[in-house]
């Protein structure tokens, strides 16, 4: 389908000024074969090279051509003056991805200041974290068409927001070089893995390499956006519609990061799953509609069925069967066995006296389904296998 891009985005994407092949920052480290081949194969995540006494070249990459987008960001920093001397990037991606990379580069070029401009140091649990200050939201705002009063008249299509996460992610990876030096995807040491987990949280979406904190970072803006939509009456969601709200959050997360867009296993089955993250952050919805629509968790609450890891779900079902179904069956000389759980389908086998009666097995499966729906989760289906 054809995307309705803002003119600003088209203009920026058509006239890029910071393409690495033209800027040529890599020429400064001409002889570095290892770095070059890591760049060519897409293995490089982050790197740092001192060019002379004063200047350092930082490199950060994100994405892969197989996923549809790939970006490498290069920053030449003058250390004594704390300023970005030159910036460049490689981009393999669609029009909005090129536009976002270029806009990010232009913003950095305008700011120049490295620490305090491009990123800031933040203390967390006694450790310093480097937080980028050039964010997707800012890039997206800059790419929108505005009228004379500065009101946005056309913004980047929602479906294409995920293409602009490239820049922030590449910058985040680049900042890792400041604290941890070179990082190669294939050679990640255990230390570095831990470090990535520490900065970005555990890996959630394995297909698109999206980590927990990348997802949770989005929650606040989604929350705000939903709040506004509800206030204007443009959303059908009601504050007490927990499942609907989780779904809305999930859709927005997927639009912004691609997380969950391929195999879908991280929706429920992985730990942590996207659903579990949403519910952990926002377990209660505030029906009064105060400043924040969603109230953050004060303490850990019991998770609902669909947010549980697989084995806990099986356990709940097993418990329900043991408590509510098995006793009455055993009275009649039969028994029931939980065979498998596939998605929302529970497969059970009837044994003993019940197994030989075809009609009763269908009726039983229906009965078990009603019990499980009542006590465990309302979307469960029960199938009887002979």
């Amino acid at each position, binding site marked *: *389908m054809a995307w309705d891009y803002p003119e600003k985005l088209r203009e920026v994407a058509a006239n890029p000024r910071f393409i690495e092949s033209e800027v040529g920052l890599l020429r400064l480290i001409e002889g570095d074969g290892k770095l070059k081949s890591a760049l060519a194969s897409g293995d490089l995540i982050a790197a740092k090279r001192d060019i002379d006494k004063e200047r350092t070249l930082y490199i950060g990459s994100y994405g892969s051509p197989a996923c*549809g987008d790939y970006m490498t960001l290069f920053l030449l920093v003058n250390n004594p003056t704390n300023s970005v001397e030159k910036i460049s990037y490689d981009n393999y991606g669609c029009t909005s991805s090129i536009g976002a990379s270029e806009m990010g580069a232009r913003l950095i070029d305008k700011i120049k200041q490295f620490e305090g401009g491009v990123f800031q140091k933040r203390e967390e649990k006694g450790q310093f974290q480097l937080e980028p200050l050039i964010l997707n939201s800012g890039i997206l705002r800059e790419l929108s068409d505005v009228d004379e009063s500065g009101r946005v008249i056309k913004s980047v299509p929602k479906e294409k927001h995920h293409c602009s996460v490239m820049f922030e992610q590449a910058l985040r990876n680049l900042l890792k070089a400041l604290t941890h030096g070179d990082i190669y995807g294939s050679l990640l040491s255990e230390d570095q893995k831990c470090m990535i987990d520490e900065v970005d949280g555990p890996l959630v979406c394995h297909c698109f390499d999206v980590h927990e904190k990348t997802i949770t970072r989005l929650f606040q803006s989604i929350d705000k956006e939903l709040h506004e939509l509800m206030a204007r009456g443009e959303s059908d969601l009601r504050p007490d519609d927990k499942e609907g709200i989780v779904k809305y959050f999930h859709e927005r997360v997927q639009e912004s990061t691609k997380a969950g867009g391929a195999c879908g296993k991280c929706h429920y089955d992985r730990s942590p799953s996207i659903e579990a993250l949403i519910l952990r952050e926002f377990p209660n919805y505030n029906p009064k509609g105060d400043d924040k629509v969603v109230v953050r968790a004060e303490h850990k609450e019991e998770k609902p069925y669909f947010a549980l890891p697989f084995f806990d779900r099986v356990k709940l079902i097993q418990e329900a069967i043991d408590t509510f179904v098995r006793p009455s069956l055993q009275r009649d000389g039969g028994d029931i066995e939980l065979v498998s759980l596939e998605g929302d389908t529970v497969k059970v086998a009837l044994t003993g006296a019940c197994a030989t009666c075809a009609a009763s097995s269908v009726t039983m499966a229906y009965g078990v389904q009603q019990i499980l729906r009542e006590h465990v989760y309302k979307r469960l289906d029960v199938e009887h296998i002979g």
Partner: protein
Amino acid sequence: MVIRKYSRPIEKIVYMDNNATTRADPLVAEVMVHYLTEEYGNSESVHHFGGDLRYVEDDARENVTRLFNGNPANLYFTSGATEANNWALRGVMKRAKGKHIITSTVEHPSVLNVCKQLELDGYQVTYLPVTMEGVVELDALIASVREDTSLVSIMYANNETGAIMPIADIGNYLKDKKIIFHSDATQALGKISLDVVAEHIDLLSFSAHKFHGPKGIGGLHIAPRKRIAEGAPWRIEITPFILGGEQQDYMRGGTMNIPSIAGLGKAAELAYLHSGDSNQVEKLRNLLEQSISEQVPGVIINSQNARRLPNTTNIIFPGAEGESIVDRLSEIGICVSTGSACSSKSLTISHVLDAMKVEPSCINSVIRFSLSRYTSEEEIKYVIHNLPKIIEKLRNYSGYTRKRGG
């Protein structure tokens, strides 16, 4: 409703996306206007003004079936190939004794998604893999036939790569079996010659807008019976899909769409007249492929060694992203398609190229050019003049050229 001019004023349009849809021939539009405004009756009416319009249906049936050596009496009009595919699969499986279907991984979504639905309803489906050239292999099909196989549905030619499937071989193998053979010929009809009798195709679906006819009309050709060696002919059973009045022998309800049927008939007539043009189309396609290969280093042409539709070429441009290429070509009026993930709403890559085991890093760099009898040599030259510059630029952005150069 007003006709809005194309939002981006461009001097010329070079349309090379004919596997998506085609321009209706002006002669097709002419007959359609006639049956919309002059003879606009209902062909089911008793009065002559309406009822006599049955001749339009008859003419169209004749013209269409001539394209694939079918029987006019066995042709049913539908809203297009999607409906025809839905009907063929659901209609057959409802009556079938066995619950097994064989299809391929590269089918159109209107077959694949119906198969997925049927699986939920308790049917079993085997999805045949394809070769690196994107072709289904007869041996694989034979190996997956079971006692309870009731239906085989294999497309005639693939929409993305243009690869033609070994339909005659499959038909020949199935002709003595009580298995119904359906082929989605949407991309093939009007582009190459088909023969449902010689190739033993029991059900054939197609759509008019792929060969310069109107959108929203197509059909399903249903062979009534199959002659299994020795013994009485075996009746092919299929239930109707869209129920309504007594139109089309109760097999497909809904008022006869006479203007569109007339347009379809005219388009089929013209396709038959122009069938000699396919050599010219193929020559232009080859010119395009050859020139691109010469001027753009590192390109890969998919299904190049397979039997292909004469109008289609599917080319990988490593280092340049598909949607960017389409977008930049579109700015200068050239219309093509891509299988890139970014171009789809779902962000998923082309299932066809994935099934062909195309290198994942290349799938997002794929462009499909599909020509028609309207394509001129001058248009090919316009593309060749502009495309290499665009690829070079995008490869520069991605660092591909630099990385390649060492």
